[in-house]
């Protein structure tokens, strides 16, 4: 087991080193750690020797073996894509017709169904206030699609799961990035062995992520170029484009990706997880097949939901070619390698 420490150490090891990716794992648990405009801050000093804040944080030492045993009942092997049962191509099915999606709409379809068939009583999603990501608890299936599309900015989504426990939800679903779902997985370990602990997480859907942007830096950056109120969409076209595209009703702005990457939080550089390994299902863009997603089924529960979704017309599946799998493996493996190198550089 890794050693669990407190807020002071969390500040010293993560936040003061600018490694926080604002996942929200430490937020909503206590009056000390709070999120504001994409950043997490500590309001007052907490002197506890052991805290959930530290235990949940994906940037403190993480016990992958314990997570693997808890989620998959199997040994952690450190493979690029993590533990999985199958990988397929997927997109929203006829039941979701009429909705427009950035990629395949697979995530929206899965969460809509999960709420409709009461697999979960609430979904923690990341909506938007303007273009600023805004985590929220959604209980109506019809509201799921309002939270669709990529935000590109770090958001304290896990805070909603922490808060949801206090609001009486017992089966929550969450859609999150790799760091967010690492926090959720650690939360489910009941790290402080609290007697009154209840695991209210009933479904975790991960989103592939190579990086997110520092919300404040990115907003300031955009504000200098465009009236952010008028932005209709943001997208990273597949390689070799190397651009970030911002669209408004009047114009399309292309920003070189290098300028964008300068706003990636330092914490992303030590993240070993591209495909959100600590989840029931993870979803990413299928780069070779526009309008489709890659869907990674990791748990039995995830597999069942996918089967139901196909049967009920929420989801359409297709083969994920071997060539694409190799490509995905390479990308995920490279992220792991870079993370390792960067972490070692920081330690030295």
């Amino acid at each position, binding site marked *: 087991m890794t050693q669990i420490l407190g807020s002071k150490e969390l500040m010293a090891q993560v936040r003061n080193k600018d490694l926080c990716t604002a996942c929200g794992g430490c937020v909503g*648990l*206590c009056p*000390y750690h709070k999120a504001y405009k994409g*950043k997490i*801050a500590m*309001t*007052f000093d*907490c002197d506890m020797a052991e*805290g*959930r804040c530290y235990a949940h944080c994906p940037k403190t030492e993480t016990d992958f073996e314990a997570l693997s045993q808890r989620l998959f009942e199997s040994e952690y092997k450190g493979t690029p894509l993590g533990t999985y049962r199958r990988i397929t191509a997927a997109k929203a099915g006829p039941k979701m017709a009429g909705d427009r999606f950035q990629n395949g709409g697979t995530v929206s379809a899965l969460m809509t169904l999960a709420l409709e068939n009461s697999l979960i009583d609430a979904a923690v999603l990341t909506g938007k206030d303007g273009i600023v990501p805004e985590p929220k608890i959604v209980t109506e299936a019809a509201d799921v699609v309002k939270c669709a599309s990529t935000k590109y900015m770090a958001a304290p989504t896990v805070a909603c799961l922490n808060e949801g426990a206090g609001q009486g939800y017992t089966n929550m679903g969450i859609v999150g990035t790799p760091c967010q779902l690492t926090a959720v997985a650690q939360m489910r370990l009941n790290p402080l062995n609290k007697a009154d602990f209840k695991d209210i997480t009933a479904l975790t859907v991960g989103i592939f992520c190579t990086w997110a942007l520092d919300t404040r830096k990115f907003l300031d950056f955009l504000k200098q170029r465009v009236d952010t109120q008028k932005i209709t969409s943001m997208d990273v076209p597949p390689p070799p484009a190397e651009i970030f595209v911002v669209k408004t009703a009047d114009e399309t702005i292309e920003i070189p990706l290098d300028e964008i990457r300068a706003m990636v939080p330092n914490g992303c550089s030590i993240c070993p997880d591209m495909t959100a390994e600590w989840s029931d299902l993870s979803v990413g863009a299928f780069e070779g097949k526009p309008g489709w997603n890659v869907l990674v089924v990791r748990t039995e529960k995830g597999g069942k939901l996918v089967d139901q979704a196909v049967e009920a017309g929420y989801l359409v599946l297709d083969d994920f070619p071997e060539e694409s799998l190799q490509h995905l493996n390479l990308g995920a493996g490279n992220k792991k390698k870079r993370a390792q190198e960067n972490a070692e550089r920081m330690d030295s």
Partner: protein
Amino acid sequence: MTILTQKEKGARHLLMGNEAIARGALEAGVAVAAGYPGTPSSEIIENLAKVSDEANLYVEWSINEKVAMEVAAAASFAELRSICVLKQNGLNVASDFLLHLAGSGTRGGMLVIACDDPGALSSINEGDTRHFARLLEIPLLEPGDFQEAKDMTKWAFELSEMMQNVVMVRSVTRLSHASGNVVFGELPEVEKKARFRHEGFFLDPNEGVVTSSPVFYKHELQQKKLAKAVEAFEDSPFNTYSGPENPEVLIITSSACNLYSREAIHILEAKDRVGLLKLGTTWPLPPKLLEKYLSKTDKILIVEEVIPFLEENVKILAMELAPKIGIKTFYAKRDGSIPAFNEMNPDLVINPLAKILGIDYEAMPAEYVAQSQDFTTTGAPARDLTFCPGCPHRASFWSINHVLKLDNNQGFVCGDIGCYSMAMLPTGFSTAKTMHAMGSGTGVASGFGKLGKFGMEQPAVAVCGDSTFFHAVIPALANAVHHKSDITLIVLDNSGTAMTGFQPHPGLKVDAQGKEALDLDIQAICESMGAKVDISDPFEFEQTQQKLFDLLELKDGVKVLILRQICALSPEKKGKKKYEMAIDETACMGENCGCNRLCTRILRCPGLIWDKEKNTSKIDEAICAGCGVCASVCPEGAISRKEVA
């Protein structure tokens, strides 16, 4: 009817030093008294205000000390007797006008009463006002006991009129705030008729123009007047000597140190060996008097508080007199015999005196010091300075800290002078990071707000109380607005000069004498200057924090947030609980992850107690002021409040 207006001559009363000074002014027939509240000086104006109708006075709490001095000076120009009362740093504020007043001269007797605070018991400085007498070339009187506090004040008016200039009387905390016997003198029935004569020859001191120009002429005149004061000092009854004809050591002292010196001589049983020259007229020193006493012995111990003022002046005279009186050995601050900081006490006199006399006496044996330190660290619970239960400042700084931390740009508070100065301490969540003079929080913030050019992105927030706002913040605020300095000023408006005892200020509908006054509107003043202003009740956390967030968002200019909630100790509110508070002990999370005693460890209102046995918080009914704030703080909703019917 108070004791202060009792007519009976020769009656003996127990008076506080400040009351004795007020009585002295009444016995002198003072007509106008003005000041600005500041410990340890406040009771002088307060007591005079109480008898203002009865004794036919005009008394005011002025907006600041400079204006107080100007108000008092006007009375003098109109041939009335007047006093201006202030604490040590107040004299700094008034000193610009005072420099010019000393040059122009006065007509009706006028005194500056400066109450110093050696040891900074109620200050954040231990400024020594005595230097101003030398700097401004005006006479300085220092009472050595309570009777003198009265008698000297009365006589100072005569001196002022004799030399036609302002006279300074200096007290210290231990004299102003301690009490002693005072025998009353006559309370005169004087006609107080104000008339400003200005139609005579312009240099005429009684009927001309009142100004310090032409400077060389007036300056020389001022120095001649001062020479007259020195003559009067040579045989002043306020300079006394006690001791043998040829003492082994001569102690020269003044003010409260007179009492410490007498006690030291008594404890060492050395009254036959030590002479004590207690000076009441400490600047300029009377040379003949000094020659007489310096001639008595070769060893001189000078006992005074803070800076070596008396020491330096005595040494200058001793050097001049050396051909007549010989070479002296001085024991004072410059050789380390007496400390030049903090207040004095008998022990600090005993140590050097015993050494000079060769007496084996340790005022504070090492064993005693060690034991007392041991008791203070282990015997008594540690108690920090803290805001009172129900204090709005605790709530205000809770929100300010919250917003600055969440804003996450290393924002900070420029503190100011008032109870809220404690924002530097844990009770104010250590939000204040600078603190200097009255109004300086806003002035310093105004400067920080212009450093964006050099890469500074930290938000600068200034705080000030309502009284401080009027005293010295207005010019700083105007400066910040004019220069588009990017700052937020938070006015902690608790409806009174709370720290010094609820003296009224220009924001209130009442004046020092209890009469109706025009209340100035802080919001309207700030808005008319061009600041963006919002108001909130600091007890409403959510609203207050949202408003502060919103104001901080606005860049390039001055934002003002007025947090209005009356002081918990104000006469209107004291003892009246708005809420009955209760704690559900079963819900209290205590030391668990998720709370970690937020209310008793961070909020730390004295009305909350941590029950170590039960591991829960509880309300101390006797202390709780029923403000309801802690209910908003508890993350589990374990603290509830019920409105008192």
